[in-house]
């Protein structure tokens, strides 16, 4: 079996002299749910549009199913797109919208009718064939856009921020819906979003992008638990990112206090960045903590309390805990060695630029 379905090789693209993608390499496995995640302007949508054929890369190749499709126009590619804001044809009924691709391919009428029924059932809009597009809600239009794409039986479905225009509750429902669709269809989904929660919920692979570079690629767990640099750590969830020194293997110096950790191979007395998630910090009696600080903020968040603990050097630690410590109370900070994530400091200026400069 072939390893990957889509390979992007050395893709570069600039618009009006501004570099959007720089020597991007990405390999996407068959039957996976890949999310391109990043802030606006990171190049994720451009990457998707290059795969879809709407944007021509300045250099590099797009390999699809073993063939170079870099120069194929969108209508010759066996993949379909669900566009941002849906892009339904306003002059056609729902059935005509869904039938569009099949009619182009001259499929028999009975086949088309079957497909429309099947697709509408799949997106939970049975019996909507002859309704007017313009009278549908945003969520319904979204489902039609998906139905219109999948009747063509593409090997890959490209989704460009498809939930961006929906409200929160609907967005969450649609997330489950998309996972279900993906499993029922058994095809590859490539999904673009700036919403980290969406990415963590749905994907089996997340590609975090910033300023035209891939920052990290991995499973949602890897991305969340083992961010490779400060940008990823900061973009995914909340975190404390601290400049520290790696004393030796499995020992890191944070603000003069020695913390045990599990990372090796960074060298001795090397400056590093440390990521500690707020829920991984245990607040204990002052004499039992590795560091001592004072609670300076307290907010009740429902599931947990959010606190800020200021240590002597003035750093404000973000802490999530189900236990409440009142403002002004002196507490000890303790972290399990497994919950300390060590990252290399950015080496080049390029990498620096994409990191978080605080």
């Amino acid at each position, binding site marked *: 079996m072939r390893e990957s379905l889509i390979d992007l090789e050395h893709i570069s693209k600039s618009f009006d002299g501004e570099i959007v993608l720089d020597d991007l390499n990405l390999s996407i496995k068959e039957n996976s749910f890949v999310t391109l995640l990043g802030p606006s302007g990171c190049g994720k949508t451009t990457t998707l549009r290059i795969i879809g054929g709407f944007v021509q890369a300045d250099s590099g190749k797009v390999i699809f199913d073993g063939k170079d499709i870099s120069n194929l126009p*969108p209508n010759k590619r066996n993949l379909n*797109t669900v*566009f941002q*804001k849906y892009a339904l*044809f*306003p*002059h056609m009924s729902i059935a005509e919208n869904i039938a569009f691709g099949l009619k182009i391919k001259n499929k028999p009428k009975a086949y088309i009718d079957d497909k429309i029924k099947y697709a509408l059932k799949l997106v939970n809009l049975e019996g909507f064939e002859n309704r007017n597009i313009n009278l549908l809600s945003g969520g319904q239009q979204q489902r039609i856009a998906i139905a219109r*794409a999948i009747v063509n039986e593409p090997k890959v479905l490209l989704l460009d921020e498809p939930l961006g225009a929906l409200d929160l509750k609907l967005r969450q429902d649609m997330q489950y819906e998309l996972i279900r669709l993906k499993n029922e269809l058994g095809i590859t989904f490539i999904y673009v979003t700036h919403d980290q929660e969406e990415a963590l919920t749905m994907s089996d692979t997340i590609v975090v992008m910033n300023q035209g570079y891939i920052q990290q690629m991995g499973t949602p767990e890897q991305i969340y638990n083992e961010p490779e640099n400060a940008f990823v750590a900061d973009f995914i969830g909340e975190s404390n990112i601290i400049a520290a020194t790696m004393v030796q293997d499995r020992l890191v110096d944070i603000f003069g206090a020695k913390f045990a950790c599990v990372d090796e191979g960074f060298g001795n007395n090397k400056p590093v960045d440390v990521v500690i998630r707020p829920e991984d910090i245990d607040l204990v009696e002052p004499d039992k903590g590795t560091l001592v600080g004072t609670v300076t903020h307290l907010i009740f968040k429902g599931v947990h309390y959010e606190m800020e603990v200021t240590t002597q050097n003035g750093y404000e630690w973000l802490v999530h805990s189900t236990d409440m410590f009142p403002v002004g109370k002196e507490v000890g900070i303790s972290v399990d060695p497994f919950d300390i994530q060590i990252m290399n400091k950015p080496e080049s200026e390029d990498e620096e630029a994409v990191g978080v400069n605080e």
Partner: protein
Amino acid sequence: MNKDLRKILAFPYIIWMIGFTIIPLSLIFIYGLTTRDGSFTFANVLSIFTRDHFKALMLSIALSIISTIICLIMAFPLALTLKGKKLNKGSLIVFIFILPMWMNFLLRTLAWLSLLEKNGIINTVLKFMHLPGLNIINTPAAIILGMVYNYLPFMVLPIYNVLEKIDDNTINAARDLGANTLQTIIKVIIPLSIPGIVSGITMVFVPALTTFVISNILGGSKVLLIGNVIEQEFTKGSNWNLGSGLSLIMMIFILISMAFIAKYDKDGEGMSV
């Protein structure tokens, strides 16, 4: 200011429109449906069926349909090309198409006389290149050319306005679903630009149908259009009742055009300037 007070703002305008649009138009009806001594008659309107008048009307209809079609064929690819250029809103396009209007309409048409004449500029160039000459001056062909030249912008602007509003992703979606360029144009772009096309057709057809200037200048005195007939009744023949009666016939065509616009361009998309 409350709402009722604000409505009063439209009053001067409404009075103006009644005084200078509605009443004058009713006068055409009154003149058209009466004889010189004021008694009611259909004779003025029915005179369209006399040989000369009917011939002029038919020729007008034929020439204006042909020039409308030519305008449409020329304007649609042009508007599509301009959309492809992604110009800043209203910058270059208005500039290019409004600018010729600042050269006087009659002089502009007259310039075609210089270009088309037997010893005119085009023929001189053709002769120089040893090509056969172009002898269309004083023929209906020259009138069609004059109509296309003068009214082409009226076709381009509404179509361009509508094309501009089509979301790029709607076009991309058609491509994505397997349509090639031609299929995309026929199945998606043209149906979506119907309001602009209808506005354009009307804005070319009506002035072309009723012109008397272009036929006067480029047709010599050999080609008589319905516009020429009416104009002469008012300026030379001085039979205003007859002229008004024939104007009523033209207004039927204009009303049909307006009904078309009302049907296909409900939001006035194509009309916005």
